[in-house]
């Protein structure tokens, strides 16, 4: 790299190129915001249980073991489709409720969080909402 290709040229290409592709990215983001209302089930959010459930999801660090739409830790099952996999919100609630406090000898086990019935309803409502998001047919099958 020598001759007419100077450091100044390289610098100008850097600033110009970065700015151009940043603007393209922002345009794509703008377009994204226009399209996602058809996919993200935002009308469901009028149910306050979902926001409360999301907060429980966060404050108990569920993503520290599980994935949600494939993002998170890979220690425990995907939960974006757990309501579908287990068949109902009731089944999900029963599973969370039945975790032994001292775990299962030698096995991975979910902690016993001691959720109230209302908490469980909220978490189930949140997971049900996530399962209805249009995630481009992911996961490949019900096992997640």
């Amino acid at each position: 790299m020598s001759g007419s290709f100077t450091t100044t040229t390289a610098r100008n290409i850097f600033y110009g190129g970065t700015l151009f592709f940043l603007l393209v990215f922002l345009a794509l983001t703008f377009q994204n915001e226009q399209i996602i209302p058809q996919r993200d089930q935002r009308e469901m959010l009028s149910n306050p249980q979902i926001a409360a459930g999301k907060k429980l999801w966060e404050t108990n660090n569920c993503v520290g073991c599980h994935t949600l739409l494939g993002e998170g830790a890979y220690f425990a099952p995907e939960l974006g489709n757990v309501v579908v996999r287990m068949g109902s919100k009731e089944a999900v609630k029963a599973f969370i409720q039945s975790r032994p406090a001292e775990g299962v000898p030698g096995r991975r086990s979910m902690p016993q969080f001691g959720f109230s019935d209302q908490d469980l309803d909220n978490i189930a409502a949140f997971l049900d909402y996530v399962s209805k998001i249009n995630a481009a047919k992911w996961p490949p099958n019900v096992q997640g």
Partner: protein
Amino acid sequence: MQYKSQAVAKPYFIGALALFVAQILFGLVMGLQYVVGDFLFPHIPFNVARMVHTNALIVWLLMGFMGAAYYLVPEESETELFSPKLAIALFWIFLVAAGLTVVGYLTVPYATLAKMTGNDLLPTMGREFLEQPLLTKMGIVVVALAFLFNITMTVLKGRKTAINTVLLLGLWGLAVMFLFSFYNPDNVVKDKFYWWWVVHLWVEGVWELILGAILAFVLIKITGVDREVIEKWLYVIITLTLVTGIIGTGHHYYWIGTPEYWQVWGGIFSALEPIPFFALTLFAFNMVNRRRREHPNKAATLWALGTGVMSFLGAGVWGFLHTLAPVNYYTHGTQITAAHGHMAFYGAYVMVVLTIISYAMPLLRGRAANSNKAQVAEMWSFWLMTISITFITLFLTAAGILQVWLQRVSDNPMPFMVAQDQVALFYWMREWTGVVFLVGLVVYLWSFFVKGEEKAA
């Protein structure tokens, strides 16, 4: 060391290495929990160990970046640091905040920690890598801004080079993108979309500017190649980084409720993301081959070359493996992702911080380079850690391929936990390789105390 104020880098490097040890110890805990599920349960559940593992990593790398900036900016700017006192004060604030956060993770249930630290005021916790309490997040912003003020003022009063300009751009970008961690809408699709503006635009964006600047600085010092040549390379590499990496964010937008056009945009641009890493490898080897001096610090040269190769393999090749949407449809959220994450973080960011520490620490301790004996020990640690992370990556890749097959591709897909039992052999091999990594880290730390004949600075 040409400027007295460069000495403030030293506590940053030491603090970074202490957190590195914590990161690896908790990594081993998690690795064991993968196969002995009830290990330390319910006292340190997996998610807690993981928070310590990933958060310690992020914080020690940030500390390393800050130490690097305090070391190289005065030398590049040819002036003393604007305020060494501020730098030292910020170090202690940062270290204490990080320490308290880890103590919080380990001693109280996460939900209690959230309540205690005001998460109700502005819920930001419980999202991957951004688990820190609100107070810690605000602390990070304050420390980052004060740090940037200190560094920017130093550059403004001194010489402006490509290296300190690019470093500043990277560091400012880092601070600005972190602000998106305070945005947490109830809408999961939007939450995830902007969460990546912190995570992706850090590690596949602005952090690479910091990496490039640090590596360019060390290469100038150890090879004596003309600044003109090295700075041109630096600009070319970071152009390739941002041209591919910004829209490359789209490879995270395949399956989270965002429109399908991201599969095309994200696929094409992220498929090009290995190019800047390949350029980085060429850059490091070219400069070392064209060296105009024989620098006595051979270990630093080895780390610099290693950064090029391992970042290309980990971030470039292992990233490309699963970046195209038809592949990612099957691999998304499996051990393949974990495999990539381990080698990419080690190859790019761990290694570049160890490069600058390897180069700067002897100078901060009053010598041009460590004794031959100490360098041999350091090079042993280089190979132990680098080879073991390579095998950790290979074992996780094997586990991931099997997991994808058993759980997602075969005619009778297995439930998650059943598939996990099937791949346990690879988790055991990963754990033992992790022990070798720890041995490498111990050898590395030990190399700081190996005596022998040293050349004066």
